[in-house]
């Protein structure tokens, strides 16, 4: 299992901050600006990431569309998803798209790292 974590968010600053923190903690972070970008990123990898942090509201291809495309792809289907959302019904959205969990925006570093550690335990 790799320690790569994919952050999919259309906000560059948030994407950058999250990948920085993940890198600091020894993960191998990857970033994508939308669903389309994310699909291309993963397909270019030799091994799949251990977790995808997925913003739902994005241009080009949003979180729901990405999730459908991911589930249709045998190779990508099993990568767990954490939904990033500011929505009040974050838990419902997570359930709806079959995510393993959700992080409510604005995301706190502690919650972020605790979640990532749960799915990508460091050896």
């Amino acid at each position: 299992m790799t320690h790569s974590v994919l952050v999919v968010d259309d906000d560059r600053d948030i994407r950058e901050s999250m990948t920085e923190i993940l890198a600091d903690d020894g993960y191998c972070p990857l970033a994508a600006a939308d669903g389309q970008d994310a699909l291309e990123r993963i397909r270019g990898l030799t091994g799949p990431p251990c977790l995808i942090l997925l913003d739902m509201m994005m241009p080009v291809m949003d979180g729901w569309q990405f999730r459908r495309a991911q589930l249709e792809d045998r190779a990508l289907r099993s990568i767990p998803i954490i939904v990033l959302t500011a929505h009040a019904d974050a838990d419902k959205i997570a359930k709806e798209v079959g995510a393993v969990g959700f992080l409510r925006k604005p995301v706190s570093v502690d919650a972020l790292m605790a979640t990532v550690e749960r799915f990508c335990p460091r050896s």
Partner: protein
Amino acid sequence: MMGDAHLPNAPPRRVLIVEDEGIVALDIEMNLLDLGFEVCGLAASGPEAIEKGSKERPDLVLMDIRIQGPFDGIQTAERLRREQDLPIIYLTALGDEETVRRAKQTEPLAMLVKPVNKAELRSAVEIALYKHDTQKRLRERERWLTTTLRAIADAIISVDLKQRVLFMNPMAESLTNVSADAAVGRALESVLHLVDAKGNPLAECPMDQALREMRAVRIPEIALRNPADGTLRPTRVSAAPVRDGERTLGAVMILQDISQQKRLRLAEREVETERMRSEQAEAAVQQRDEFIAVASHELRSPVTALQLKLSGIRRKLRRLSAGEELVSRLDRAIQHTDRIGQLVERLLDVSRMVTGSLELARDWVDLTPLVRDVVEAFDEQAATMGCVVRVRTSGEAIGNWDGLRVRQVVVNLLSNALKFGRGRPVEVTVESGDRNVRLTIADHGIGISPEDVHRIFGRFERAASIRHYGGMGLGLFIARHLIQAQGGAITASPTPGGGATFVVELPRELAGTRPNEFPGEHRT
């Protein structure tokens, strides 16, 4: 064409003959019938003539001056003329000078000397009928004209060439405060006091101008001064010369009181100004709301990124075992950023509330531990302010609410109580009823005046001075909205002995929520 008797299809004109000599009467009747007239009656005396006149309504009466009975022909004719408006032609005997003189005073239409020949009779009857018809039409027209002029809502005054008043209708009487009887014959300037709109004398009276220029003159606004008290009445005036062919007879002026119109126009303008002002205010509020929506939305991402970045740096510093002082300074920076984040979230909430896009995530929530948790989170702040927060609860207080939003309300109310509580104790009570749960937060601080009690729940409203107490004035607005959105109510009242008390009542569930879910294993 004189009489109508010769017009084809017209009914023959009807004549009453008053003559006590049968032969003469018969002769006249034969002649009239020959000439195409109808004889509608023969009378031999005055009373008989009057009776037949009123019954038959003849077009003309041929009246012998000397008849039998209590009064003679002249007296009878006078009554017929006066009472029944019948035209009269007298029949007299030759040489009766005195009678002829008396008869003339009754304005007969013609006099015929007996014996009457057919040609004379014809021309006399036709001329008489024509004259009478013309006079009648003239009288009717005059009456119609006078009635019309009297009925017109505008004031009408006519003058002769020397500017003496000839006619004034009732509206002119009321406008000038002078009766027509008193005005007729007087100089116009002594009846009508026209000045300009500001009360200054006119360079020229509109009547003079109309007569000088020989055309109609219109002045949209002029004033009529009341000589008694000097008040001005705004008036619209038009004046025109009165001409008969080439001859100028005088002038006529129409005056229209426009004070009512001016008042209306002024009122309309005020309404319009008021409407524009309120539209501008509405637009300003809308602009403000739009600005807040855009600004808070735009601020959110960089603030979140900043929070993440600072937290990340702190993690790294700890790992690098950086000095405690550096970490503590960074902690302060993170606190400041968190506060900015909270303010941005508040503004975003307000925008969502204004646009109705705020969404609630309901679940079964127990208010008792929620309140205790919030109070605990404020422990440090309360201790710093030397304020004791007492919590009184009575077991579970469960309801179907958005827990995060209820928490937000408790935070807002408690931070208000501490902020305005002057360091005195704050009492927090949670009571649980059958259908409702009640949260009371009472402080003993600066309090709220009764007139501010409702206002403080408005947007950007505050009861305390902004100089001594900061804040955006959104906490209570948000609290009220969040409570109302969950079917509850929030009220403010003075705490006995000073301070403010806020009471939140929340229904355990909205109508329509399934009661069998209550309470049970769904609680988280």
